[in-house]
C-alpha cells in the first residue's frame, strides 16, 4: 500500500460518497435519522482537506490522520466506526491485512455481529474474499452482495434497531457506504 495509492483510494471514496450522498441519506431516512450521507460527506471532505493541508509522511500517518479526522467530523455512529477502521489499518503491511485489522477494530468498537444489519455485513465478506486470495474487485463485489443481503434483516445495532421489525425491507446505510469504500478500492488499488 503506497501513500499515493491510499490517497487515490480516499479521494475516490470521497467522490463516491459525495455522489451518493442523497441516496445514503434516503436510506438512513427510512431506518434512522436521515444523516448518513451528510455525515460521511462532511467527514471525507474534512479528510481530504486535512491531507491537503499537511501531507502525511507515510501510509501509516495517512491512515491515522484519516481515522482521527473521521472520529471527529462525521458526527454519527459511522464516525467512530470508520475512524477506528482507518486507525487500525495503520499497523498492517498489505491491504488485506490492513482491512482485516480495521474490520476487527469495527467489531470491537461497535460490538455488532454479522447479521445485525450494519456496515459489518459489507465489510466482513470483503475481508473474507481478500483473505481467500481474491482480487480487490472481487472483494468489492462481496461487499455489494453483503449490502444487498442487509435488506431483509432486522437491525440489532445502531439507530435502526429502535425500529425493530420495521427496519426490514431497507438496505443498511452503513453497509451501503462500505460497499462504496470497497468499490473505490477496486478502482484505485492494485
Amino acid at each position, binding site marked *: 500500500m503506497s501513500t499515493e495509492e491510499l490517497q487515490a483510494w480516499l479521494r475516490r471514496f470521497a467522490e463516491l460518497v459525495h455522489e451518493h450522498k442523497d441516496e445514503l441519506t434516503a436510506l438512513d*431516512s427510512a431506518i*434512522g*435519522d*436521515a*444523516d448518513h450521507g451528510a455525515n460521511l460527506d462532511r467527514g471525507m471532505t474534512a479528510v481530504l482537506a486535512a491531507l491537503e493541508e499537511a501531507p502525511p509522511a507515510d501510509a501509516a500517518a495517512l491512515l491515522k490522520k484519516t481515522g482521527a479526522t473521521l472520529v471527529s467530523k462525521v458526527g454519527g455512529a459511522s464516525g467512530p466506526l470508520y475512524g477506528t477502521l482507518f486507525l487500525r489499518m495503520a499497523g498492517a503491511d498489505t491491504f488485506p491485512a490492513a482491512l482485516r485489522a480495521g474490520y476487527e477494530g469495527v467489531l470491537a468498537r461497535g*460490538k455488532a455481529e454479522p447479521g445485525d444489519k450494519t456496515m459489518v455485513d459489507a465489510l466482513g465478506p470483503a475481508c473474507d474474499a481478500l483473505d481467500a486470495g481474491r482480487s480487490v474487485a472481487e472483494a468489492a463485489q462481496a461487499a455489494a452482495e453483503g449490502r444487498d443481503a442487509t435488506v431483509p434483516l432486522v437491525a440489532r445495532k445502531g*439507530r435502526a*434497531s*429502535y*425500529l*425493530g421489525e*420495521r427496519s426490514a425491507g431497507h438496505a443498511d446505510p452503513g453497509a451501503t457506504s462500505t460497499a462504496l469504500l470497497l468499490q473505490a478500492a477496486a478502482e484505485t488499488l492494485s
Partner: protein
Amino acid sequence: MTVGIVVVSHSRALADAAVELARQMLPGRELVVEVAAGTEDGGLGTDAMAVSAAIEAADGGEGTVVLMDLGSAVLSAETALEFLPDDVRERTTLSAAPLVEGLVGAVVVAAGGATREQVAAEAGRGLAPKEAQLR
C-alpha cells in the same frame, strides 16, 4: 391515530432540545409531541396546569405517554391528572423512563403505530443501547 407523547421538564430548553433530538428519528413522519416545561417567566420549574393542557393537546384518542425529568416533575404530572377529563386521564401513562433516552425510543415506536403500553415499554428500555455498548 397514534399515541401522543408529552415531555415534562423543569427546563424549556432541555425539553425542546430533547424533542429535537428525538424528532430526528422521524424524518418525514408525523407525531404529536407536546412539551410542558419551565415556569411562566422562563425559569426552571414545572406547572401542573401546563402539563394537563399538554396531555389534552397530545391525546388524539389513543392516549399519551408522559416522560418527566425529575421527581418534582412527577408530582406535577400526577397533580395534572386530577384536572383531566376521566377518559383522557384513563389513557394517560406516566413513565419513569429516562427522559432523553426513553423519548427517542418512544417517538419511534409511537410513530410506527404502537399501543400506549408498547410505547411506554419502549421508553422504559431507553438505557439498553448504552448498556449494551458499554458492556
